[in-house]
C-alpha cells in the first residue's frame, strides 16, 4: 500500500481526554493535521470554513449528538468520510447511523488503536480518491465542452 499523504482529521468528543489520547496516537503514527473539538457546535463552525478529509465523532454529547453532527458534516462536506466512535453500544442506533448519515465506519469504545489507524487511513484514501474522481469528471466535462465548441466551429467553417 502506498504511504498515506497528510490529511485533515477532525475529532469531536465532549471528553477532552479522548481527544488528547487519539491526537497523541495519530500524531505519533501519521503526518495528519488533527483538529480536536469538545463542542460539536465549534466543530461545525470549523467545517463551514476548513476542508476535512475525515471526521471522527463521539455519539453521546450535550446539545448536538454525534449523528446530528455527522449529518450536518455531510451537508457541509459530502466527500469527507464520517466515523462514529461511541461508548454507547447499541445495535439499532448503529444501523440507523449507517443508513441515515451514510457512515464510513462505526467504532466502539474502548477502541483498538491499530484498527482505528487502519480505518482512519482507509477513510482518507477513499476521500482522496473521491476528490480525484470528481476532479477528473470536471476535467472530462471541460474537455467535452471544448470539443463541442470545436465541433461547432468546424461545422460553421465548412457550411
Amino acid at each position, binding site marked *: 500500500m502506498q504511504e498515506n499523504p497528510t490529511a485533515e482529521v477532525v475529532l469531536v468528543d465532549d471528553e477532552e*481526554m*479522548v481527544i*488528547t*489520547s487519539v491526537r*497523541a496516537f495519530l500524531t505519533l503514527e501519521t503526518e495528519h493535521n488533527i483538529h480536536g473539538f469538545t463542542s460539536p457546535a465549534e466543530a461545525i463552525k470549523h467545517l463551514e470554513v476548513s476542508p476535512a478529509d475525515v471526521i471522527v465523532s463521539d455519539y453521546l454529547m450535550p446539545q448536538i449528538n454525534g449523528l446530528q453532527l455527522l449529518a450536518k458534516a455531510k451537508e457541509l462536506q459530502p466527500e469527507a468520510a464520517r466515523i462514529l466512535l461511541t461508548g454507547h453500544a447499541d*445495535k439499532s442506533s448503529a444501523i440507523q447511523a449507517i443508513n441515515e448519515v451514510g457512515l464510513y465506519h462505526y467504532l466502539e*469504545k*474502548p477502541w483498538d488503536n491499530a484498527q482505528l489507524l487502519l480505518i482512519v487511513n482507509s477513510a482518507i484514501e477513499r476521500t482522496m480518491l473521491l476528490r480525484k474522481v470528481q476532479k477528473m469528471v470536471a476535467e472530462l466535462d471541460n474537455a467535452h465542452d471544448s470539443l463541442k465548441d470545436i465541433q461547432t466551429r468546424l461545422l460553421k467553417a465548412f457550411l
Partner: protein
Amino acid sequence: MDELTPQEEIAQLRAQVREMYKHVAISRLSAGIIHEINSPIASIFSNIEVLEKSLDVVARQLEGTASQKTLRILETMRSLIQVDRLACERISGVIRSLKIHARLEDEGFQDVNLNDLLDDSIRLVNAEYKRRVQIVREYGELPPVECSPQLMSQVFLNILVNAAQAIEGEGTITVRTAIDGEKAHLSIADTGHGMSEDCKKRIFSAGFTTKPVGVGTGLGLTISRKIVEDRHSGSIDFESEVGRGTTFHIRIPAKQNRR
C-alpha cells in the same frame, strides 16, 4: 408444594414485581456507570500504547550514550507501563461482563456460547468473593445454545452468589459444563454448609430466604426457575447435603422449539 391462597399468591406476585423493578433500576445505574468508565479506560489504553512506542523511540535515540541510571529509569518505566496495561485489562474485563448483565433492552434469543457467558458471571462474582472462594472451571465443549444471554446470566449470577454465600470461610465452587443429548448441562457445586430437609422443600418458593434482611429477598431462585423452565424449556434442580455442600444442575435445550 402447599396450595397458595389467592392473598398469598398476590403477595408473591407483588414481591416479584418489586424485585424486577429493583433489577431494572440496578441495570440502568450500571449502564450509566459503564458508559462513564468506558471513555477514560479507552483513553488510558490508547495512552499506554503511545507511551510504550514513544519510550522505544527515546531509548533508541539514547542508545550508547545513556548512563546506567537513565537505563534503569527506562526499564522501570517499561515495567510500569506493563502493570498499567494489565490493570486496565482487568478493569475492562469487569466492565465487559457487567455490560452483558446490565443490558437493558431485551435482545431476545441468540446462539450463545454458554462457557463464555459463565466466564462473564464468574468474573463478576470473583470481584466480591475471590479472597475466600476459589472458582474452578471444568468446561466441556458445548454447541451454541439458543437462549437469552441476559436472562441466563441473571440465573448464573444468582446461583453463583448463593453458592459463595453458602460457604463460610474458605471453599470452592466448581462449575462444570457438558453436553447431554440435545441439552447443555451446567452444574454449579459449592463446598458450603448444605441445606436442611426443610430448606430443600422451600428454596424455590418466593419469599423464602435463610439470609438476613437486606441480603436476600428470597426471590433469586424463584426467578431463576421461571427463566430456565418457563422461558427456555429447561430444567433446574439440585442435590444438597448438610455439611458437604450443594450442587445445582441446569439443563437447557440447545435449540428452542418454535411455537
